[in-house]
């Protein structure tokens, strides 16, 4: 896959606040890679993207792929919300802030794909990719062993 250009980012994320601090995150989404900022000097992760490492003040922050595994920390079921072609609020749409295994407190917020049982706080989840319109959309799916081995 060719690397999406800056112009493509603006075309495909119309209305989003794409800027020099978060462009690699958006570029990653188009390549189905979830990239969060990590400090090149001390290894600390942070999100949303900032120009400096909140721990050591280094400006050597690098958008780095995460493993996509984590634990549901916040969860809401949306019975209505902003229009999106793939979201039918007639079935409440779960949106979760997932604490990623990379670091305590590092969270990423995304929708949770449907399953036999609604998701719950504390569930173990993994990253999956869906599609919204013409672009990839990161989502989480509950692990088969939803209580398996994670922090809460």
């Amino acid at each position, binding site marked *: 896959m060719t690397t999406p250009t800056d112009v493509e980012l603006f075309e495909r994320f*119309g*209305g*989003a*606040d794409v800027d020099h601090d978060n462009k690699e995150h958006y570029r990653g989404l188009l390549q189905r890679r979830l990239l969060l900022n990590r400090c090149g000097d001390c290894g600390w992760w942070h*999100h*949303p993207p900032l120009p400096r490492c*909140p721990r050591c003040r280094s400006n050597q922050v690098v958008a780095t792929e995460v493993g996509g595994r984590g634990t549901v*920390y*916040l*969860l*809401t*079921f*949306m*019975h*209505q*919300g*902003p229009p*999106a072609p793939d*979201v039918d609020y007639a079935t*409440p*749409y779960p*949106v979760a*802030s997932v604490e990623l295994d990379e670091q305590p*407190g590092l*969270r*990423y*917020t*995304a*929708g949770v794909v449907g399953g036999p049982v609604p998701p719950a*706080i*504390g569930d173990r989840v993994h990253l999956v990719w869906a599609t*919204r319109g013409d672009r990839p959309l990161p989502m989480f799916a509950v692990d088969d062993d939803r209580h398996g081995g994670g922090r809460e």
Partner: protein
Amino acid sequence: MMVRNPAKDAVAIVGLGTTPYRRDAGGKSPLALACDAAVAALADCGLAPQDVDGVGATTVPSGSIQAALGVGEVGWWVNVTMPVSLVMMEAVNAVFSGACTTALVCHATYRGAGASRSAAADPFRVHAVGDAHGHNLAMQPETPSGTFGYCAWAGRYLHDAGCGREVFGRIAVNSRTNATRNPHALFREPLTMDEYLAGRMIREPLSIFDMDPPVDSGDAFVVTTAERARDLVDRPVYVHAGSLGRTGHPYADQLTDYQHTGKEIVADRLWAKSDLTLEDVDVFYPYDGFSIMAVSWFEAFGYCKTWEAPEFLADQWDDAGNRLLLDSRVPVNTHGGSLSEGATQGAGHWREAVDQLRGTAGDRQVDGASCALLAPGGFMWNATGFVLRA
């Protein structure tokens, strides 16, 4: 923590102005609403526009208010994002420092096109930049800001406290009971807990009764030195202490946890600055744009411990009055809060607290009220707290 409070009681609120809170103000712009409120606020304290030398506002350009009202030359002006508490803090500091002597503070709300079908058919709302809450219209279902945060933290609260939604219901029911005595409120019908629990879900676990209704509104306040205030009005309301609070994780989904938010910072700093304590408070105004916010302020200010609000609010419930009455004495959100009065991002809380302390709250007047505790903000990036005294 070192705090200072040289502005203690040095600045006062002398004028209040407001417009009706409606779903559609009928052809009025946010600027017109702000101006209506400002004209009323100046009249309330007997000042002419030329007596003002500072203008602060949220959503409406302060220069346009200045121009429209014929305010002459000003030495201080500012536009700050809502809630209006942020501008009030600026105004207090400006008056105290001498940047100006008499400041006009204005806030207006304008229902966004997304608020209803009729709003969506109104070209003036469709073409407004962003919606009345400043939301980006390109917001996605998963965007972790705006309403997402409080709904998600409300869910986390129920999980951590191990309680049911009744804790939020008490905020909503209290609000409606108090609103029955507020002619300014949008919703004045009482609400039962059963009705609350059956409310239509919006973002589970929060329902239609947990979220304040968008309105078209204008509110204005006149702020001046304590000395000038005493010349102008019988009963000035002094800003005794105030603080904003924000952690280094000011994003809805990145807050460390529920116990490390802006509200703890506000409470710590406010009580360190204030000579008055919780026992002195006669009326309490926790912001309730989302019901979870109000619940959290009881805990932050020390009325009860974290996650003990469910028991505390049940204990402090006045069955006869069908509302909260802390220590059988202190009512909460006497105007009905934003939940009943309308979504004005804390402007209504400010107005009602001042009305109570100067004895102009009509049927709602709390006898002898002389100290108000306000938390007219949320708990993520916009936490604010103030102690006012008469």
